[in-house]
């Protein structure tokens, strides 16, 4: 009574039925199609026994139409032994359970019934190959067995998939997975349209319509021409060594400032959050210094550091130090008291609590702080470079303005945007790497 579901119409019908089942309800269309492709259709007349308790648990069934009666053996301990199932009902999942190879129930067709059959091992292999999506389906199987079939939780534990999700899912494979999801979603294409609109407006406003405010601005084509020209009119383009020199100098300054600010800021913030006395001494001074705008420090920095280089780095450092320290402190203070109490109960000493609870507990806030910190570090660096210095992107922008090289200003600005985005993305990747637990939690809750 079986027929392979090969025709296209049959596959579509199978996908539709799967979509109405609990485990596959929110699986991706791609996964559903692959699952449907291994389905075999079968029909049973009213009263036919589909399988009996104690049989080998080989296939999994999904009801397409009709109705079946599913009766557990008493040993299973289901609170409601009889379950009637119609379209979208899933039975025969015993083979998915840990350490279970036999049928737990007897199933009969109550009406003429159409079902889809899946070989359990083939289905598991398929789910394993789809890592995250597959793991999700297995979780939903477990939830369904426990809730809809009223089986005790002890019994309703499904097998672990040996895919990258459940065994050793590295942050890298997760990043790749996200990337592939992103490419499949409409988001990248909307992003391209967004850029096109922005650039298009720039082009039209300056070069075609010549709107009053935009008349003096460098146009899109002149900037692009200058940027990619081997012989730039104003001396700076992708082909000149000087361009890269400015980038390298700025990046190197930000790196020094950011690393120093992170080391000192995190240490300082942890101390602030951890020791009440230290906070009482230091925090009022800290809070008074923090709101002072970075530009107000410029004269002092030049007086303090004779060399302009150190003065510029100092200014970039200062802004990011405050951001990092403050967020780290908030991170420590945000840690739920129960975690510390639990660690106390489990016999951890103060040093161990610090190492195993305070630091990891504060990490999410610390990384939020570092994201802000890398941003303000660029911000204050450019401000400092505009005031003093002979190299760097801020210097480029400032001197180009004074020497009326307008396209070069835009080249400097766009370059800053790109370099700033890359550094900020690097901080985010580092954060994901260090907080795998959080990445995985978010990955589960997003879908």
């Amino acid at each position, binding site marked *: 009574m079986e027929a392979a579901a090969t025709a296209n119409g049959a596959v579509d019908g199978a996908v539709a039925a799967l979509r109405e089942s609990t485990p596959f309800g929110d699986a991706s269309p791609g996964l559903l199609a692959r699952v449907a492709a291994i389905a075999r259709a079968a029909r049973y007349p009213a009263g036919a026994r589909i399988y009996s308790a104690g049989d080998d648990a080989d296939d999994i069934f999904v009801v397409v139409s009709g109705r079946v009666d599913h009766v557990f053996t008493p040993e299973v301990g289901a609170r409601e032994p009889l379950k009637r199932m119609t379209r979208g009902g899933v039975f025969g999942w015993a083979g998915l359970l840990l350490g279970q190879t036999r049928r737990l129930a007897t199933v009969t067709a109550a009406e003429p019934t159409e079902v889809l059959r899946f070989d359990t091992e083939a289905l598991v292999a398929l789910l394993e190959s789809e890592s995250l999506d597959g793991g999700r389906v297995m979780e939903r199987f477990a939830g369904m067995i426990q809730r809809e079939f009223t089986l005790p939780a002890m019994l309703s534990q499904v097998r*672990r998939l040996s895919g990258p999700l459940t065994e050793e899912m590295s942050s890298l494979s997760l990043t790749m997975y996200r990337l592939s999801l992103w490419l499949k979603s409409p988001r990248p294409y909307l992003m391209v349209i967004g850029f096109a609109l922005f650039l298009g407006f720039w082009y039209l406003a300056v070069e075609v319509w010549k709107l009053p405010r935009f008349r003096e601005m460098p146009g899109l084509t002149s900037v692009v021409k200058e940027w990619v020209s081997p012989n730039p009119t104003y001396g700076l383009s992708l082909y000149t060594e000087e361009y890269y020199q400015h980038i390298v100098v700025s990046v190197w300054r930000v790196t020094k400032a950011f690393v120093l600010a992170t080391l000192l800021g995190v240490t300082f913030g942890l101390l602030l959050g951890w020791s009440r006395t230290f906070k009482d001494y230091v925090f009022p001074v800290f809070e008074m210094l923090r709101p002072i705008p970075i530009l107000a420090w410029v004269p002092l920095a030049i007086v303090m550091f004779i060399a302009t280089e150190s003065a510029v780095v100092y200014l970039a450092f200062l802004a990011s130090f405050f951001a990092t320290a403050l967020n780290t402190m908030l991170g420590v203070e945000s840690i739920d008291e129960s975690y510390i109490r639990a660690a*106390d109960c489990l016999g951890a000493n103060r040093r161990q609590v610090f190492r195993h609870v305070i630091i990891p507990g504060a990490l999410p806030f610390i990384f939020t702080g570092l994201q802000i910190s890398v941003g303000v570090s660029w911000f204050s660096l450019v401000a400092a470079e505009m005031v003093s210095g002979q190299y760097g992107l801020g210097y480029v922008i400032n001197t180009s303005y004074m020497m009326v090289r307008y396209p070069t200003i835009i080249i400097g600005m766009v370059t800053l945007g790109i370099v700033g985005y890359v550094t900020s993305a690097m901080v985010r990747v580092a954060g994901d790497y260090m907080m795998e637990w*959080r990445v995985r939690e978010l990955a589960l809750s997003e879908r």
Partner: protein
Amino acid sequence: MAVDHCSLEIEAGEICMIVGPSGCGKTTLLNAIAGFHDITSGRITMDGEVLCSDDKPKSTPGPDRIVVFQNGALFPWKSNLENVIFGPVMQGKLARKEAIEKGRGMMADAGLSGVEHNYPGEVSSGMRRRVEIVRALMNDPKALLLDEPYRALDSLTKSVMHEALLEIYYKNKVTIFFITHDLEEAIFLGHRVAIMTTRPCKPKKVLDVDIPHPRDYSVLTSKRFRELIEETNDAVHEEALKAFQAGEKEG
């Protein structure tokens, strides 16, 4: 005053349920036993050893009495197995390798094999509770102090968790101090049920539950269970009303 004139003796190896309306001071009592709060006067002893008294108002938290928290306190940044081995490894009682072996064994006994390397955030809330209880039992505690551990669970998961807790209890006879505001839960699980008054919190009535252990879910429909509920319902309701009138907040 949250707790006053509270005198209660719990036998070794018994499940003692503390029932009272939200905000009646039950958690304060637990915090005093665990060593999270000072006491102003009185004495708490365990196995003859004084935990806290007028001379030493704060007991030291330790692995002999471990708290399972209302909202769960598994470290989300450690895998389930890392959580489970935390106690013995921190105390230096077991080497990491031995602890992992013991932890795997105990997790398997509690039906938790397969989730060792998952983070707590990746498993169901029911599983998280079991991992937390296993983490406590790894230290061979004399007592477990449970603070409404199943409060946030839906009633179906809750019923499954009750049986799972009893199963774990039958395997590791440990004294259980269990706070709840759910009378059915209390009578289903406990050897004794102490119904507490509202602020100050002290035992109003202590009920011996004469339904024999081991119990399973059929107890819930038994005649004796219903009788015991009827016997105590009034006392609980009276306190709930008092708490409500006093305008106490949840807590």
